[in-house]
């Protein structure tokens, strides 16, 4: 008890941070733990983009930005602590990069009135803006990715998947379980057999799962992994000589740290993606000049152009554009969280706008509305080239199967609305 009082006093002294007029974008990052391989470059990209805006443009609309970081280690308890620690700081938007933390935060951000953007992760049915006022998951969600993976498999098989077998190898958590419903619905439509194989977190041990895959000889393995689990799975797939072009990961299972440890064995591995890879975009010249060379990069600058880095940058770009939109809408530069939410809902990132930002064709066009918080739901398939150590986009942006997914989203969000007594908006 005494210890408690001492810390209370100490903490109160330290919590007294000065409040300045600036736009605050808290980053709930994880640079430690089994998922750091994905979390670190994402957090670097997120922070670097805002640093670039500060250094080059003097912030957003003349307001400087600030990105306070809080380490969650992908752990929900720490995520909640980080949220509570940063929300009083004038936080405009949360991007926790963890489906578990997202589930934790959905009721909290709704009660506190702070928007949350879960870009390509989180609760899929949050795409229904009628129910989820404060949560956004544009430009795509898990079910979109699942559908895109099935569509790609359809393409490879010449349009017919009946009688084929697909294994879903997934992280045994809310994250990994998300696509199951969609894949089951799609299996009814396309007639493929679906086998579910869970891997317990963090997924360093997958021998028995791959033994099962070797025994069942599926035509495709769809993969829902994250962090250290990705590296292990790709190595194990190489060990059993599974045909890599039939091994397709979600967009969180396809970045450089995942495939590099497997060396040549990873060649041909595929994953979905919704952002460009590499540094062949004009914006990277600016990042190099204003951020990395100026010694202000969040990381050591080596992850520039990597999948997760680019994705973090893309997330930051969407947040900055929404803030800009909110500033335009309200005619003030110092926006609050509620105005930020309105900005996100009115977000319209066109191809021309992305070219203007130095990111031509970097991601799909994003148009958000009151009803649709999920954006276009597009993604492309990329393939790993182990010789050049590069991800190569092998398709254009593919549209997901809206008929199936929209129905599922309505169903799931209606169940949530009923549980929590939420009335539909946007009438």
């Amino acid at each position, binding site marked *: 008890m005494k210890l408690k009082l001492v810390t209370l006093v100490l903490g109160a002294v330290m919590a007294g941070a000065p409040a300045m007029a600036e736009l605050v974008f808290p980053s709930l990052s994880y640079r430690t733990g089994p998922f750091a391989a994905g979390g670190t470059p994402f957090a670097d990209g997120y922070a670097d983009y805002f640093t670039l805006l500060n250094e080059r443009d003097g912030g957003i609309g003349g307001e400087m930005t600030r990105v306070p970081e809080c380490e969650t280690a992908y752990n*929900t308890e720490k995520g909640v602590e980080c949220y509570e620690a940063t929300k009083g700081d004038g936080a405009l938007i949360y991007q926790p990069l963890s489906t*578990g933390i997202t589930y934790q935060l959905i009721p909290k951000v709704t*009660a506190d009135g702070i928007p949350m953007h879960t870009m390509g992760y989180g609760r899929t049915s949050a795409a229904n803006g009628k129910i989820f006022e404060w949560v956004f998951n544009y430009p795509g969600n898990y079910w979109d990715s699942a559908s895109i993976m099935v569509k790609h498999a359809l393409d490879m098989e010449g349009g017919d998947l009946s009688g084929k077998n697909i294994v879903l190898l997934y992280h045994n958590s809310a994250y990994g379980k998300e696509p199951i419903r969609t894949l089951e619905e799609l299996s009814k439509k396309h007639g493929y057999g679906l086998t579910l194989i869970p891997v317990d977190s963090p997924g360093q041990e997958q021998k028995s799962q791959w033994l099962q895959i070797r025994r069942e000889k599926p035509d495709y393995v769809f993969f829902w992994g994250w962090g250290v689990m990705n590296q292990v799975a790709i190595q194990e797939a190489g060990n059993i000589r599974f045909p890599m072009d039939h091994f397709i990961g979600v967009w969180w299972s396809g970045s450089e740290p995942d495939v590099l440890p497997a060396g040549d064995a990873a060649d041909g591995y595929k994953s979905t993606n919704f952002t460009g890879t590499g540094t062949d975009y004009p914006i990277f010249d600016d990042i190099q000049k204003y951020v990395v060379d100026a010694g202000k990069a969040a990381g050591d600058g080596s992850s520039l152009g990597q999948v997760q880095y680019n994705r973090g940058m893309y997330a930051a770009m969407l947040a900055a554009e929404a803030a800009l939109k909110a500033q335009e809408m309200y005619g003030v530069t110092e926006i609050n969280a509620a105005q930020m939410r309105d900005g996100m809902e009115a977000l319209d990132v066109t191809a021309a706008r992305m070219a203007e930002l130095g990111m031509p064709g970097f991601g799909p066009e994003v148009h958000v509305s009151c009803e649709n918080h999920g954006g276009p739901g597009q993604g492309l398939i990329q393939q790993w080239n182990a010789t050049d150590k590069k991800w190569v986009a092998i398709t254009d942006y593919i549209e997901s199967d809206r008929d199936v997914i929209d129905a599922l989203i309505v169903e799931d969000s209606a169940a949530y609305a009923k549980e929590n007594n939420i009335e539909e908006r946007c009438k």
Partner: protein
Amino acid sequence: MFYREAGDFKTSYAEDSQTFPIKFDRYRYYVVLLIAFAVVPFIINDYWVNAVFLPFLIYAIAAIGLNILTGYCGQVSLGTGGFMAVGAYACYKLMTSFPEVSILIHVILAGGITAAVGVVFGLPSLRIKGFYLAVATLAAQFFLVWIFNRVPWFYNYSASGQISAPERTVLGVSVTGAETAPWAAYMVCLVFLTLSAILARNLTRGMAGRKWMAIRDMDIAAEIIGVDPLKAKLSAFAVSSFFIGIAGALFFAVYLGAVEVGEAFGITKSFLVLFMVIIGGLGSIFGSFAGAAFLVLLPVLLKNLLVGGLGWPTDLAAHLEFVIVGALIIAFLVAEPHGLAQLWRVAKEKLRLWPFPH
């Protein structure tokens, strides 16, 4: 000077055997209770409640539970995380099946269900001891987590496998769900902790506790003097699991609001609570508080100090935090193998003699 019995005369057995026989100690206890109940709720905010107080209060309940089993009855258990999961899932099923019944009753019932499950997994303790029992309870840990992941009935067939607590009120004030005021969540956990501690304290110094301690100290001798090992061990498992179940239910319903069994109630949780008990002091109710406070507050404090105070990078701070907490645990246990509770006892002895130790 402090903690003196001098002049503090007892005129009845009840007075003599009370929990805090020394007047100074007793008043200190009343002051702590007064602050906890009448001051903290008025000054508490979201951050303090979610980052510090709720985890501390809830882990203290779990530590009291494990302390009864491991500290008082000598049965090493690594199944705490699994038993907390039982409490959480029982509470969830009760909350969603009987929404009209008060959440407080559900939490207590969840404790009761966990007690029953604990007794079942306590059965091997009649035949196996020590490390072998630890391994048997480890099986409980993995089995329980596996079954909550495997059987969709437990999570009401939700697509993500998560359970989330709907809003429930006590006397018209919501205590679960997002609209909960910080003081309401704090008060619920504080009431449960206070009652648990009083109950545990009185159980452990009564006949039940003496039987447990007899079993702990030498089970054959205990049996010879008439302690039934079956009843003693299984009652320890039941009471211990009851508290752990309550902790699990509060952890899910009041603190996190939504949990995923593998992540929230994994093996790390079992170890965390076991470390709390060992660092705090085996066989001591105060030790459960001290251990929970140490392992909950220290990381938060270090994080605020290193990142907020000194502005270090978050990853460096997080790694250093492991190093510092680990080093402190080793240092504490080398300096005082009987935990923080023993340090506190020694400090009290010193204070009694101070400033004239000779």
